[in-house]
């Protein structure tokens, strides 16, 4: 049985790097063996560090300090030529940086009144079609979509109704960007709300509540007709929604799994296989999952409306790397199985997941 265990994907820890600051997000620089760590230094400033993978160690190439701590970043809306980094900081500022000349941002706006918890980009890196756009979700309860070609005002603003008490938005994700017009934004809030906004019709397309605060949402692929959405929450639960069939009242079908007792901080799908994803937990563990589709993805209900059928999730591997939560996770888009994760023990780890070809 131990031998059979070895046939499953293994999570191999390749490099560990201790940092002298709190790291909130880590991202691979596309088309390279370089990665970025974003975070907050002890003296309350923001840090961006650029590392390169050299054999069994990370070499620090560049360190950029900014006045406010940085919470999140994305390369999603930039071209491969430029590879500009978009960041959200603790003060609500959205900035886009040219890492070759980081003194002055290429784009800057004070987008929110409070910390930007989450950021996502679409339309860049030669993936998908349509305008490059960035979405930010903040503790001020709003979700805003920005176009780097338009200064100061967002192209879409999802805000609470007048008089409604706000809820923190903890996570945002783009999806359904399969042609130039279509695009959706999914947002998760601290009271368990998940809302799906359709940017083509500028309306709320679907909402639900999963009872526990939503820490992370991600579509399995941004640039296809929306297929699956994973939402993770506090109390160790995550839900996988089948987004292909929307029922008029019941919404989307889902399957949920309780992975562990602690918060699931992040979910990230493998860029090379959209049915495999990894979740990172508050107990310092990583779980690798595979989604299995049901025999029929949709069926008719008693009134004849189509409703989706959720499949099942199976655990491929799990490993505990740290005692502190692993708050950020990113797969390399260029090398299958290579990923970086950052934890609150001020360490960033490069991992290699093996045997993903055999799944």
């Amino acid at each position: 049985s131990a031998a059979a265990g070895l046939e499953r994907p293994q999570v191999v820890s390749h490099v560990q790097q201790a940092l002298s600051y709190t790291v909130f997000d880590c991202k691979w620089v596309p088309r390279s063996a370089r990665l970025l760590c974003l975070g907050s230094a002890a003296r309350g400033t923001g840090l961006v560090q650029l590392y390169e993978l050299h054999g069994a160690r990370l070499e620090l190439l560049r360190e950029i300090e900014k006045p406010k701590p940085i919470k999140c970043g994305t390369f999603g809306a930039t071209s491969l030529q430029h590879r500009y980094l978009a960041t959200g900081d603790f003060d609500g500022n959205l900035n886009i940086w040219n890492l070759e000349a980081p003194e002055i941002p290429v784009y800057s706006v004070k987008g929110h009144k409070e910390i930007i918890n989450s950021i996502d980009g679409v339309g860049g890196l030669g993936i998908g079609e349509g305008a490059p756009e960035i979405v930010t979700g903040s503790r001020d309860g709003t979700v805003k979509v920005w176009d780097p070609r338009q200064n100061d005002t967002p192209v879409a603003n999802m805000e609470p109704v007048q008089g409604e008490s706000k809820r923190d938005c903890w996570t945002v994700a783009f999806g359904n960007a399969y042609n130039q017009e279509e695009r959706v934004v999914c947002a998760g809030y601290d009271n368990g709300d998940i809302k799906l906004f359709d940017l083509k019709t500028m309306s709320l397309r679907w909402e639900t509540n999963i009872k526990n605060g939503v820490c992370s949402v991600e579509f399995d692929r941004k640039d296809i007709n929306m297929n699956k959405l994973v939402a993770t929450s506090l109390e160790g639960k995550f839900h996988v929604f089948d987004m292909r069939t929307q029922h008029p009242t019941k919404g989307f079908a889902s399957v949920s799994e309780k992975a562990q007792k602690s918060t699931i901080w992040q979910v990230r799908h493998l860029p090379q296989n959209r049915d495999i994803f990894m979740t990172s937990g508050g107990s310092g563990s990583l779980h690798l999952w595979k989604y299995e589709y049901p025999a029929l993805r949709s069926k008719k209900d008693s009134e004849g409306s189509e409703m989706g059928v959720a499949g099942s999730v199976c655990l491929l591997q799990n490993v505990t790397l740290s005692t502190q939560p692993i708050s950020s996770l990113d797969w390399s888009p260029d090398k299958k199985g290579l990923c970086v994760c950052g934890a609150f023990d001020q360490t960033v780890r490069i991992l290699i997941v093996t045997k993903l070809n055999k799944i």
Partner: protein
Amino acid sequence: MPVWLREHSWRQTLTAVYLSLPLRGARATAADIFCSERYLKVSVPPFLFEAILYAAIDDTNSTAKIGNGNIFFTLCKKEPAMWDSLTLGNAGKEKLQYLRENAVLKAQEKAKEETEAKKLAKQEHKKYALEATMKLEEAERKRIEDLKEKEREKVTKELELWKNQQKDAYKYKSVPKKGESHQETEPLKERKTKKPTKTRIPDEGTSKIRLKSTKGCHGSCSIFSPNLKAEQLPAPRAAATIRVNFTPRVFPTALRESRVAEEEEWLHKQAEAQRIINSDLSELEDLKEEEKNPDWLKDKGNRMFAMGNYLGAVNAYNLAVRLNDKLPLLYLNRAACHLKLRNLHKAIEDSSKALELLTPPVPDNENARVKGHVRRGTAFCQLELYAEGLQDYEAALKIDPKNKNIEKDAEKIRHLIQEPMQSS
């Protein structure tokens, strides 16, 4: 009384003594043989045989065979010598006794030793078995570790390779033009040399060359130059706002932080309280419709309190309580009236009743509980029961630590308590 068995026959060699004891009809299976170095006793009820041996024997190696109506002993002598007789004759009674006891003691010691030896042997075996299993498990673990290591190394090598590929692609991107021209010049030279011999091939050759150069650059250049795409990008979206509502909850705390069970209980209680109507009052028929509503009466009471008509307010609350005795606010407000009217005992009663009804303690009824404690505390202090009053004030502070008035009053009470002690 056993019967001594006197008949026995024996013979000896230099090293052994052979003793034969006939069992006259006695059951051989019941034979109990006790033997030590110098002493031999056989008890076959009802017969008893005892012998103080002439010389010492090795009792561990000696044997006794029971069967065929007799017991046959093979006793190995400790020292090879011929014995004059089987037993030691002329032995005095005391000597016999002494030898007997000695024999018994020795036998016991021996038994002890044997058990000790057995125990040790068992432990040794256990240890050995444990070590053996541990070794096996170690080996298994090592094997798995080795497999994992090998995998790691393989993967690391692949990673290095990929990285170098990336590096090369990067370098190649920055010098595409040079490469292109280089590729073109060489085959051109070839073409020139080939010209005299073959005329058609050069044309194919050139077209091939062109294909080659574009192909060579295709792998890296195309992904680095999405400039063509830039022209096709749509204009920025027309700005719009989507207004959202959030899922309401009576208590705005996340599921994990809320004390759902208690809060549900409180809500339930409130709902129940609203529905109670004490209908067994005959005077009810005289009342107007609105006077039968406890809430309306409560509001009336509040208004009268505000105007200073404390007796009137008390009456209103009294009637309300008769209609519905489960509303904590009625008692709370009546307590305030009694305080003003200096009906201190009644104030205490009402505040206590209110606090009783305000369980379970949840954030929703915090304000009410603070008021209850403060009013009761005030009443106690006015009755000069300062210790009890302080208790209530401190309870109030616990619920609402930021209230400066309560803090000041609590301090005053503390001083009051300390002063009389100082003066006396």
